[in-house]
């Protein structure tokens, strides 16, 4: 099963990287009409199927290892 975890900076947390990227985009004449937010994706395969146990395990690694709950949110997709 393919797992993709999406980690994004919390809305209220400063995203200096996003700000710098937005600035650079303007230099290339693309003007975003919102803040730019830069997040992470983590992709990997897992043996097994979509069970509550597997989701519990996944949540354990998402919360703390793959994302920092103090400043980031996460969601994941199974395919």
């Amino acid at each position: 099963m393919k797992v993709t975890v999406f980690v994004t900076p919390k809305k209220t947390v400063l995203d200096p990287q996003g700000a710098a990227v937005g600035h650079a985009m303007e230099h290339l004449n693309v003007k975003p009409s919102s803040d730019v937010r830069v997040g992470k994706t983590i992709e990997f395969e897992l043996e097994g199927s979509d069970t509550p146990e597997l989701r519990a395990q996944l949540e354990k690694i998402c919360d703390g290892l793959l994302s920092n709950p103090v400043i980031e949110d996460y969601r994941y997709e199974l395919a």
Partner: protein
Amino acid sequence: MKIAVIQFPGSNCDRDAYHAFFGVFNQPTRLFWHKRPSLAGAECVVLPGGFSYGDYLRCGAIARFSPIMNSIIEFANNGGPVLGICNGFQILCEAGLLPGALVRNEGMEFVCESAKLNVEDSMDYFNQGSLGETIDIPIAHGEGNYRIDDDGLADLEANNQVLFRYANNPNGSISNIAGIRNKEGNVFGMMPHPERAVEEIHPSRDGIGVIKAFLKSQMARQQKA
């Protein structure tokens, strides 16, 4: 040679490079802010180390689109000498003036230490005859892991484009590569900091040889042209 040291927002070895080229080598040197439209007659360009644009996105990715980069690319394509140190090397790769890319160190940590480099026989002045077999030059980077595909690597080797290799690979670079040049021999990039090894108080003075080799090789090229 009239030397331009480019200052990008977040460059932080710009003054160090200035100090080495002007203070130690007595070359006429000027700092150039990245928003300048031209190189104003500079004969040699140095892209210093640091964290241009905070290393956001990828090291050198945003600086590569700075206004002055157009002039630098044109300058380099016309055979003008360009030296990129650390972040400067990363910018040159992003700009396509040097092949390959630099990614996170294998150990995921920033590494600052004096590194032993094996000198390759690459071109005039950049060879064991003039630099010696090994030199000690400080490194300080978190993303110095040099990557290139197999064909690219074969090309580099076939054309003797590798300048230095780490004796003890600190970052996972392919083929222990620490510094390279372009095929033509006018664009140079290296992760180690030669400007940190030029004075008595520094851990070594091997940077003097490297900077001299760069200046001499470029003067010789220009005389030939």
